[in-house]
């Protein structure tokens, strides 16, 4: 038997409404099921997601509990996505009454370093999921100073998405192998697609990146990094990063009139979802944008409203910057942690092992969050098979698996949120020309480094 409890059922994209959910959360009341802690019965908290997402996890936990002869399991869904989920979780941990397992949509490093989550290293040794079965770049998102505080069971994998039909219409080869390998190639090709009608952007090629979370990927593509974990030093204003932002800014000026506002007034060229602020539809799905970077979660949503105006699209590796040498990928994982104070830590860990190898396959089939453990035998998402056929679905699945193996570390800081906000601020300043690239990155660097040192100090 299993229980499911919904706090606020919401069906919104994972990246959407982060801010609004934060505000909603302040008024949220936890359902009583959230406090069903008991020995021999697993209690799982999920930060959000659709009803389907909740059903999958309820089912997985239920199946596992039955097989392991545990008592009735409880899954609490939709506790909110962002800071308010963290608030609830911290509250439960400090009260000594946490769930046995919690999914996180924020890196476990910050709170792990504060001692909120159980270190998993000992339990991993000799288990079905030892350290070496995880892609290092991915696992680093749960590690701080060599201690593992959680597991990135599945992940949205960032790669380039492109509209094959738009490519072909311009006579550009649309196979994955021909996709631009460098930023320069990408920028050059982009111009072919970009059409302005006065101040309205009718269609576009690619866009300079402005998503704070993925800036670390672009930095790595240019041979740089944002955070040097080994030396505990941020590198936000490194040569490579200044070069990167200068490249983006010049690109913006050259191709997009130097004004993202004009771009945003013309449609949502930022990601593959309707914009939660302006309500504008995604230009990519509307066939007005040749390509973009996106997480793999879009695989599950792209066939929903608004339905793409074209049929064939594909994924390709992220191109490399002038100072970079090889392509890398990035992820936004679904982390799982065992909070300190769990009543059933071993059973919880056993569930995570099960989830990492077997459960995540079912999960991926229904919602395309890519399973990350190297032992997983991935099966293509059912929806993708249905729409694009087995061959394409298998190809994309295999491609995402490859990409998951080359992820760059990007969630490994104990001051992750602070860093993200500082990057967001710097990027805005750069693109609105409120600050030169160097100054903006320098400010972010100084502030973030100071915050890191403050947190790390005794």
């Amino acid at each position, binding site marked *: 038997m299993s229980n499911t409890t919904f706090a606020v059922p919401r069906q919104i994209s994972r990246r959407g409404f982060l*801010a*609004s959910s934060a*505000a909603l959360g302040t008024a949220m009341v936890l359902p009583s099921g959230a406090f069903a802690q008991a020995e021999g019965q697993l209690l799982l908290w999920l930060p959000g997601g659709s009803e389907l997402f909740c059903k999958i996890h309820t089912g997985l936990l239920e199946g596992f509990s039955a097989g392991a002869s545990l008592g009735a399991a409880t899954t609490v869904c939709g506790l909110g996505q962002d800071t308010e989920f963290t608030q609830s979780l911290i509250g439960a941990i400090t009260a000594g009454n946490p769930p046995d397992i919690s999914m996180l949509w924020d890196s476990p490093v910050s709170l792990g370093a504060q*001692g909120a989550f159980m270190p998993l290293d000992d339990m991993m040794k000799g288990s079905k999921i030892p350290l070496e079965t995880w892609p290092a770049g991915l696992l680093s998102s749960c590690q701080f100073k060599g201690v593992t505080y959680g597991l990135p069971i599945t992940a949205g994998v960032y790669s380039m998405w492109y509209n094959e039909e738009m490519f072909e219409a311009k006579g550009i080869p649309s196979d994955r192998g021909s996709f631009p390998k460098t930023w320069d190639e990408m920028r050059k090709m982009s111009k072919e697609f970009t059409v302005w009608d006065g101040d309205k952007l009718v269609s576009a090629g690619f866009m300079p990146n402005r998503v704070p979370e993925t800036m670390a990927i672009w930095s790595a593509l240019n041979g740089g990094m944002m955070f040097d974990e080994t030396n505990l030093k941020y590198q936000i204003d490194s040569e490579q990063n200044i070069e990167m932002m200068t490249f983006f800014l010049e690109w913006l000026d050259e191709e997009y009139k130097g004004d993202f506002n004009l771009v945003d007034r013309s449609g949502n060229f930022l990601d593959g979802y309707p914009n939660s602020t302006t309500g504008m539809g995604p230009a990519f799905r509307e066939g007005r944008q040749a390509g973009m970077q996106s997480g793999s979660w879009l695989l599950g949503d792209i066939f929903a409203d608004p339905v793409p105006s074209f049929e064939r699209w594909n994924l390709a590796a992220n191109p490399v910057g002038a100072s970079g040498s090889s392509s890398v990928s990035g992820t936004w994982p679904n982390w799982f942690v065992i909070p300190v104070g769990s009543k059933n830590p071993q059973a919880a860990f056993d569930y995570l092992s099960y989830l990492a190898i077997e459960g995540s396959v079912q999960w991926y089939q229904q919602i395309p969050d890519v399973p990350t453990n190297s032992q997983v035998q991935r099966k293509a998402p059912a929806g993708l098979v249905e729409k694009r056929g087995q061959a394409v679905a298998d190809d994309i699945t295999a491609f995402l698996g490859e990409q998951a193996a080359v992820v760059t570390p990007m969630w490994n800081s104990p*001051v992750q949120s602070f860093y993200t906000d500082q990057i*967001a601020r710097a990027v805005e300043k750069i693109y609105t020309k409120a600050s030169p690239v160097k100054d903006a990155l320098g400010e972010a660097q100084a502030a973030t480094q100071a915050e890191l040192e403050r947190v790390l100090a005794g």
Partner: protein
Amino acid sequence: MPITSAPPEAAVLPRRNRKAQRGEARAGVLFALPWIIGMTLFVAIPLVVTFYIAQTKFQIIGAPKWVGMQNYEALWSDPAFWKSAQNTLIFAAISVPVKLIIALGLALLLNRATALSGFYRTVFYLPFLMPAVAGSVVFMLLLTPNAGPVNIALEAMGLNPPDWLLDPKAALWTLILLSLWPLGVETLVFLGGLQNIPKDVSEAADLDSPKRWHKLVWITLPLITPMVLFNLVIGIIYSFQVFTQAIVIGGTTGTPAEATLMYMVVLYRAAFRYFNMGLAAAMATVLFVVVLILTLLIFKTARSWVHYEGGET
């Protein structure tokens, strides 16, 4: 033994403290006790705890560690603190008076339309039943550049509307504009004050001068100054704490370009995003002191401009 004659009564007997005789005072304290306990539990203790945490490093998990004035020093050199303080001050300085004036105007209108005022009163209160988040989202959609209904309408009228929430130069002003909605509570408070003015006093004013504005300025406004004071103080307290609209619109970074970065957003993100409870507590303390000083100043000046029905001469 000599008998000392008693001094004349009037010379020794102190004037009786009629209004606070001891029994009464005891009963008074007793009646106020639940309130006093409530105040202590829910106001005084959190306040003291906040003051204390403001002087510690406290990352939510684990124990607070004493750091003295470090958090205040960090605040002093934090651009986000200054930027958000500036935004919040501009916001409050414009939003509060404009809101008060509009609410007063509405209340005056409602006070006249006697037949429909019950209906309108409900209508004005309705927005309050809508969560601020939903309201903000609706406004964001309405104000979308190009495709949004507001700009379509303005462009149709031949105007050149701004990008509202997307333009760093316009975003704060847009937020101020949005803060004017809803203003049902302010209006209702004013309306309550207006309806409390005795009918005959208002008629006496009609007999004294035929000009409406004479009555408004010399009679009506002075008589609702307690409501003006109330709305002013509450308005200032609330606008210094503007949060929901700001975070829905600008996220935790005050998009665009920190134009909508409000004090409470910075405080909130420090506490629950950066887990820097010490800094957040220091910010809360600063806010508390500023609002307290402002409120005291207003109350001090209030003596000269607020007419209390129960007041002395």
